[in-house]
């Protein structure tokens, strides 16, 4: 049974958490890289720390872990 989404459903609630953060990471990481390496930084305070790139990387790793850990598996259990 998938945790939290109902009896008989395949997708765990944690899979949704992972998928959303992974998608956001995948959007932010290349955008942050383009800003950093293409010298297109936004005019924000501390933009020299490239927060979009690093935050995108963090979300990608976090989301990737949860997406893989709680991916739907045929006949398997996602229960935590």
């Amino acid at each position, binding site marked *: *049974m998938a*945790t*939290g*989404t*109902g*009896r*008989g*459903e395949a*997708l765990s*609630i944690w899979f*949704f*958490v992972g*998928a*959303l*953060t992974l*998608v*956001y990471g995948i*959007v*932010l990481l290349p*955008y*942050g890289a383009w*800003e950093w390496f293409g010298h297109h*930084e*936004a*005019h*924000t*305070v*501390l*933009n020299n*720390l490239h*927060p*979009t790139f690093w*935050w*995108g990387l963090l*979300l990608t790793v976090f989301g990737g872990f949860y997406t893989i850990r709680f991916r739907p598996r045929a006949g398997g259990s996602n*229960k*935590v």
Partner: protein
Amino acid sequence: MTALAALAFLTGQLTQLAPVDILILVLYFAIVLFIGFYVKGSTNTSEEFFLAGREMTAWIAGLSFVSANLGSLELMGWAGAAYQYGMLATHWYWIGAIPAMLFLGIVMMPFYYISKTHSVPGYLQLRFGEGARGLSAVSFGLMTILMSGVNMYAMALVMKVVLGWNISFSIWVGAITVAIYVMLGGLKSAIINEVLQFVLIWAGAALIPILGLVEAGGWNNLKANIAHNIGSNDYTHLWTTLGHFRDNPMGVHWTGIVFGLGFVVSFGYWTTDFLVVQRVLSANNLRAAKMAPVIGAAFKMAVPLIVIVPGLIALGLNNHGVPLFHLVGENQVSAANPYSYNEVLPLMLIRYCGPGLLGLGITALVAGFMSGMAGNVSAFSTVWTYDLYGAFINKKASDKHYVAMGRWSTVVGMLISIATAYLVANAASIMDYVQALFSFFIAPLFGTVVLGMLWKRATKAGGFWGLLAGTASSIGMWVYTSFGTEIHKALALSRVALSSDARPMAENLYRALWSWLICVAVTVVVSYMTKPTPEAQLAGLVYGATPIPDDGATSIWQKPIFWAVIVIIVFFALNIIFF
């Protein structure tokens, strides 16, 4: 700041979204709607629709429990309060939440859970009869639906101020999305979205304190900057300034914080407000139901990092010794001071977050508002269907009929919320009244529920009259302190809060304390004047008449009490560190 002020002055908005921000926002709406359709297939019975099938693990119920309270209204309001009052605002997250959440998990949850009640008014019916249930259900139903409307308007207002969006556009897009996913998936859909929202809020807001502290040069430098800007050390202490009403910017006394906030307001909200208790009732066993509030409390202790710290950072920023921000009250906004306290969080977001991160932050705010609406509407549909429609209008309908009623009451509730949002849009003072209304019922309800659970001698008549007297006295004190000449209001406030130096914030705390005491006193007196309830009828409802079943914990790591002790130790440590 100057460029921002110019943009706000010229266009009426703080910033605009880039295509990447819009992509992030659209992805959020897509996943929210997908979840609604996805779980619809498993919300066919009333238990599935109203209580999420009672199949949630402790982690999900716990995150949902804390997230249901973490709406954007609270986030922005308390970030503004941190700018206005300094660290004192943290009390609403620590002493104003943690002890009550642990008390709910360890002491009260067994009674809610083993009584198999579906709602807090439902527990009152089992313990005190139909009168107490009716009174509580009507007041709760009315308040939730009004609060949903307030949330809706607040979201629309924020989107207008920050992004220049049309108010009606924001109201209808938010309302339709929430109505769809709650109507389809009931509490299950709401809970999933609350867990997502919890993660999103951290993903969208955690960068602000991180970058803010980097800019300030660390916590000690931030404290020094605040002391320089304000000319006082009072804004960075939790307790040292609470010896007298006039010694702190909030105008409160430690007795108000400890007894009014820490005991009555906090215990009232966290243990009897069905909006949050409903999340814990969805737990899949007694141990999970006890653990959920403990897990929620642990996460709640961390929330000041993303709410209070941004307010303090704004307070400490300066440019060559001159404070960078000068935020004012909503009614003092002008061309010279274009921003109010409530805008401190969006201002800090814009300061540190460029395209992409800005979209994430805005999405977190939108998610918070929508989750606030969904929480209110799902709780409303449960109380309406079980405690009003099913109890007083149509007692013998089929389970399928009640589920249909739940779905339709979601839509009707949302339409009433939209009407409320437009009402508030045309008369902003209504927002204050709605929020005040909510406070009328919480403190007395806690008195009634806690006596019902812990005191066998409390009778049905005692419970009903106690609740009525407590609520009436709370309304009476609010009217007494809110209307009339300024001299009268100041005099009334000094009488309710017991000091001529008290400020409005103290009024809420002492009003809650007095109304709780009145509720308890009336319940006790009326109970002794009426016939006791036979003990056999109290089984499963009252401490001392109920054998508490084993929660199944086999090791110390599985025991909720062990983790509750850890949380309370951290709670005391934090209060000492920031004393």
